[in-house]
């Protein structure tokens, strides 16, 4: 037991004395968080719009003011005629144009309905969709206020938009909500799998593995000893990210904390087993790094639903995504954090993840070579 403990102490020495590992461990997650949180935003921020107000009455002015005050939009131009609409898109000066029909306010009061046209530059479909949604929201807000003031009865529809749409769980389409759960998965994969595979490969490369093998230590002790520090650090990392996510980005946490922790541990163990498995295939750190990057981190980013929805991918990739552990884990944490889901909703994903972990664990222990060949 003392031998085992001595081994773990040594591992911690290695970790804290290697600046590169420390950078990856603590620096990277934070940088990623800040990057995804602040810089790479998928939400609308001062999008350029133009307005063609064919009515120019009090109502249109109030709607316009509200739009511009929301902070999501920036007035690129006030158009005079329909001809200018196409021109402004061609020049790329606006992403969307809002057209109020003539006599907008009058129609609203008299007939109870009025038409506003939202034209978006769909050459960037994501943007276009978002623009529509945002604009609709603002307009609907105005509609509610207007109804409240004018004792109901009015309804104006924006053409071509389904008025029943509501964005559940993430009404503001806040990108932080999208990214943070994925980020947690990515960080765990990074620390638990990537770093673990490297640390074992390093012993092989440096030749110290030889000496470790010719000692009373058995393979289990070596594996667990190598892996335990990274498990501890992963857990710390997750909580670090969580704290920042909750405090700074106000990502909601609607589910059970205990469940969250347990399932995180499950995923961590899966990732650790993956790391060990990879290290048994390689002889040096560089190869370990390459395989971890290509085989683990990349799929985790691209195929887990982190950024790109799996449902939108070609069938082949969707099938492949089934074997990416992060995919299941993401469903789980998004469920817990954003939807408040419990085990009764997530049991299938949990079972799948558990199965993966078990297989990998057995495989990695089995493949650990007690001799040099």
């Amino acid at each position, binding site marked *: 037991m*003392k*031998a085992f*403990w*001595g*081994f773990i102490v*040594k591992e911690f*020495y*290695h970790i804290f*004395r*290697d600046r590169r590992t420390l950078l990856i461990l603590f620096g990277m997650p934070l940088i990623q968080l800040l990057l995804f949180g602040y810089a790479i935003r998928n939400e609308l921020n001062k999008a350029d719009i133009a307005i063609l107000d064919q009515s120019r009455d009090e109502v249109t002015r109030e709607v316009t003011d509200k739009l511009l005050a929301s902070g999501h939009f920036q007035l690129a131009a006030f158009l005079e005629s329909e001809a200018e609409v196409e021109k402004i898109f061609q020049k790329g000066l606006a992403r969307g144009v809002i057209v109020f029909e003539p006599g907008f306010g009058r129609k609203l009061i008299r007939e109870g309905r009025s038409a506003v046209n939202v034209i978006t530059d769909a050459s960037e479909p994501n943007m276009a969709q978002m623009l529509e949604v945002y604009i609709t929201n603002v307009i609907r807000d105005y509609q509610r206020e207007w109804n409240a003031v004018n004792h109901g009865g009015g309804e104006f529809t924006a053409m071509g938009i389904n008025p029943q749409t509501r964005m559940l769980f993430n009404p503001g389409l806040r990108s932080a909500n999208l990214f943070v759960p994925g980020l947690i998965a990515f960080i765990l994969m990074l620390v638990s799998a990537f770093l673990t595979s490297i640390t074992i490969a390093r012993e092989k490369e*440096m*030749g*110290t593995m*030889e*000496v*470790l*093998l*010719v*000692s*009373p*230590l*058995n393979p289990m002790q070596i594996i667990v000893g190598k892996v335990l520090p990274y498990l501890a650090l992963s857990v710390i990392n997750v909580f670090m990210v969580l704290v920042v996510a909750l405090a700074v980005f106000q990502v909601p946490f609607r589910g059970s904390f205990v469940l969250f922790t347990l399932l995180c541990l499950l995923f961590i163990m899966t990732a650790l087993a993956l790391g060990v498995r990879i290290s048994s295939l390689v002889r040096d750190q560089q190869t370990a790094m390459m395989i971890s990057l290509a085989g683990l981190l990349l799929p985790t980013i691209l195929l887990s639903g982190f950024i790109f929805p799996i449902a939108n991918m070609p069938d082949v990739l969707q099938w492949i995504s089934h074997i990416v552990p992060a995919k299941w884990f993401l469903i789980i944490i998004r469920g817990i954090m954003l939807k408040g889901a419990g085990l009764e909703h997530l049991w299938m994903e949990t079972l799948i993840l558990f199965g993966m972990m078990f297989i990998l664990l057995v495989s990695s222990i089995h493949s650990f070579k*007690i*001799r*040099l*060949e």
Partner: protein
Amino acid sequence: MSVTVRNLKKKYGDIEALKGVSFEVNPGERFGFIGPDGAGKTTLFRILVSLLLPDDGEARVIGLDPVTGYKELRRRVGYMPGRFSLYQDLSVEENLRFFATIFNTTVSANYDLIRDIYHQIEPFKKRRAGDLSGGMKQKLALSCALIHKPDVLFLDEPTTGVDAVSRREFWDMLDKLKATGLTVLVSTPYMDEASRCDRIALMHRGHILDVNTPQGISGNFGRELWAVRADRCYRLLKALRSFPHAGSVFTFGEQVHYTDRRDDFNPEELKSWLESEGLAQVQIEKIRPTVEDTLISLMDRQEGGGPPDNSATEFHRT
């Protein structure tokens, strides 16, 4: 018998690293394996400490079979691989403490054994192993291999890549260990270190060419050996090679070691011949063959007598 090996064979792909080696090591003996790269020394050691499985043959180390009894074996041997596997980012004392701990002992328990060695690096005990010179790493690695009081010690090329002074000091340290009765198997490419062993095995391309005491090995040389000097080394070499009765001609520093094909060789005859070839200050004296002379002659014989180039069909990779 501390170590018994019978007909051990090992192949990597189609390269035969060990072609059937056999030998025995007595308890308390310091046994040296002398041979260049590709001889199979490291492969042999790795098999004996149970890091590799042999393809054929048998081995017993302190009575244990490295194939089946490896668990017990790994507890009781000391192993120092080439490149002194130490943890670069751990300090001297952290390294030592680590190895003591994983062998379920403490640094103080067997300190007597390593005291003389560790003493020399103790002033640097807080320094990272990576920042030590070659000689100091060597001492640290030796300490780490001894700290658990092994029954037999395997040192794989412990003096390679280390300066001449440290090399000598290392053998001095091994001398002191002798008093403890520890069996030591050590491999080296340096011929001059052979004389510091009790017995040696000459190895070349997976074969053991001979096993004997350093003095006894020379006995296998078989012929009379002569050291020839002259004023111009290279010319002397060429001249000797062109001498009609030349047996073997090999340079050794400023001399050339020469054997003649005839049994009734008269050095005076050679001397006059050399002088007639334009060489001056010719000196010829009879000498005792060294280990290197013997190795060369054995290698030569093994290769069929011709220069190794033409007959070599087995290639070894470094």
